[in-house]
């Protein structure tokens, strides 16, 4: 039974990827891409990595799909570029060779991973019992800090270069009752994911993606306020997460002498504080990435 399910998931993912490649219009490609994201998320669940599955479904499929749809809408229909068939052939051969090499290497790889046993041995010291959160926010928090910096750079790019902000459509009568249910549920679920992240799959990135969904629903109906103030608040909130993470890193360095080396015993408090700030700021960043800079911000330049 489970084998059949696995095969179905794999085939479904591949089929969607194929459809995304050959689909004649952009919206169709993006739709296939989003569905492929869900198949991949299912695959992660089957592989025993629910954290990755949550992130893939929320960010990989959901948010990326939304961003792609937005761009597809602005770009308009596909014009035949007339790429010669030889280029297609070469690209296919190269990617098949690469994929084959990777499959071979992973299939024959024998080395015992060093990290899982280390993490398992010391997860108690980290203040949380979910090993993924322990790695992300304690053992390898430096990487997470840099990842947040990557998002900030993306935000800077969008606010510097992005074209017009999308104009929200006025909400229709059916949308408002829908929003009244969806947005609070999104906030509630985000809080739940954030809090559960300490002990079970979940965490800042996943919670932020949910919050972003709620925020986008509000913004698309024109309820978030398209003015200059909202834009400023969103950007400030986005930058605030990185600032707070850095401040925490430096504070921990002052207290214990090691960067991001939280004081013994209170690690959980630090982690929860950082994660909460990150959730808000990542959500703010993702919303502003989608919306683009507000008119007021652009006029400043």
């Amino acid at each position: 039974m489970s084998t059949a399910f696995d095969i179905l998931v794999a085939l479904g993912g591949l089929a969607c990827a194929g459809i995304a490649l050959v689909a004649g219009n952009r919206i169709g490609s993006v739709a296939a891409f989003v569905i492929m994201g869900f198949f991949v998320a299912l695959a992660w669940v089957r592989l025993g990595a629910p954290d990755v599955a949550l992130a893939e479904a929320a960010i990989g499929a959901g948010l990326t799909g939304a961003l792609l749809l937005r761009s597809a809408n602005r770009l308009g229909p596909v014009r035949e570029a007339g790429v010669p068939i030889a280029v297609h052939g070469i690209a296919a051969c190269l990617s098949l060779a690469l994929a084959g090499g990777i499959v071979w290497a992973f299939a024959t790889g024998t080395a015992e991973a060093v990290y899982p046993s280390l993490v398992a041995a010391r997860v108690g010291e980290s203040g949380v019992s979910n090993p993924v959160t322990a790695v992300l926010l304690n053992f390898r928090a430096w990487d997470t800090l840099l990842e947040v910096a990557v998002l900030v750079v993306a935000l800077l790019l969008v606010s510097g270069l992005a074209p017009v902000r999308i104009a929200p459509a006025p909400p229709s009568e059916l949308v408002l009752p829908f929003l009244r249910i969806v947005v609070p549920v999104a906030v509630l679920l985000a809080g739940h994911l954030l809090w559960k992240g300490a002990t079970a799959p979940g965490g800042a990135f996943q919670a932020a993606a949910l919050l972003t969904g709620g925020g986008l629903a509000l913004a698309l109906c024109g309820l978030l306020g398209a003015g200059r103030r909202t834009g400023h608040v969103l950007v400030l909130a986005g930058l605030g997460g990185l600032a707070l993470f850095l401040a925490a890193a430096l504070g921990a360095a002052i207290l214990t002498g090691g960067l991001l080396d939280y004081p013994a015993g209170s690690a959980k408090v630090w982690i929860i504080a950082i994660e909460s700030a990150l959730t808000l700021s990542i959500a703010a960043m993702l919303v502003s990435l989608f919306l683009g800079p507000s008119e007021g911000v652009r006029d400043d330049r």
Partner: protein
Amino acid sequence: MIAMTAMVGLGVALYASGRGRDRARGRADFWPLWLMTLGALNALFLSNDLFNVYVAFEILGLAAVGLTALARSLAAIRAAFDYLVAGLTGSLLLLLGVALAYAAAGRVDLDAVAELAQTAQGRVALRLILSGLAVKAALFPLHFWMPAAHSSAAPAASALLSALVVKAALYVALRMSLEGGVAVDPLRAALAVAGSGAMLWGAWNALRAERLKLLVAHSTVAQVGLIALALGVAGTGPLWQAAALLMLSHALAKAAMFLAVGRIAEELGHDRISGLNREELRPGAAEFAFAIAAISLVGLPPTAGFIGKWVLLEGLIEDGAWHWVGLVLAGTALSAAYLARVVARCLRGGPHVAPGARRPAWRAGDVAALGLATAALLLGLASALPFALLEVGIA
């Protein structure tokens, strides 16, 4: 290695101060991206972990794309998009390599590289990482995105991109080569061959370039090739110091050159090489800075470029590797040729200048360019200092 970081950090700081004195024409968007670039570079140089390196590259790549696109012309946006695609391809290869390295060795710190080179899977991983780095460093034949990106960005951005951002990938390659021991020799050979290809191809294109910025950008392809060649032939021997010194000197000289080109283009109103010798304009400080930077790039004494090449050639001659010696000399001759195209047109005076010719006014940009060029010169005179630091780095 820490010393190497410190040296490059010094270059960065020098550059930063140079940029600080530069005219305040940069838009508000420039500064945050610039800070992010510097931060990512510092994180990268201090890192001892392949995954850290990958994340730092992500920051660096995105910020660099932003810097390219800041010029906002159609060409710049198109070049930035090409750069983005190339950079992401490089990142993807790098990430695949890191994941595979984790599967093969079970850990991802740089010390694992020697272990990786022992197994077949590890070698595949190293190859993937190296090809990712080659895309990022614009190593021939993966340099296709680079001349357009570097020549269409604003001068300060090109200086940053050309002098520092491509060095980051070379630096990681150096680290991996040092950690890898003898087992990665095939990879080093590939690096050396690609490097020689880059040197000749970049120089050939620079000889044919019609615009000044394009010439300087193609010259970066050639110089990256020279450094990659040095890395490839150095192995774990003492020759890697020559590669490191060449990196430093290229960083200083190329930053000076791009800033100087920016100033020249500002004075002339264009940057076509054929229109450089205008009668009504006397040569200015920017041209002088360009000439000094050119001397360092060609490798004439007493610049740092000379010391780097000298050490490299001396080591190669001792090893009897005459074909590499020939290639390095050919590359040097070619770079002298294409830079002479510019310098010769700047050396005008006497009867070629109209009596009432005006002198270009001094600007902060001139000071920055001249300062960096002089730094490249002084680094050559005081080359004992970097070598002493590099010695400490080994110990």
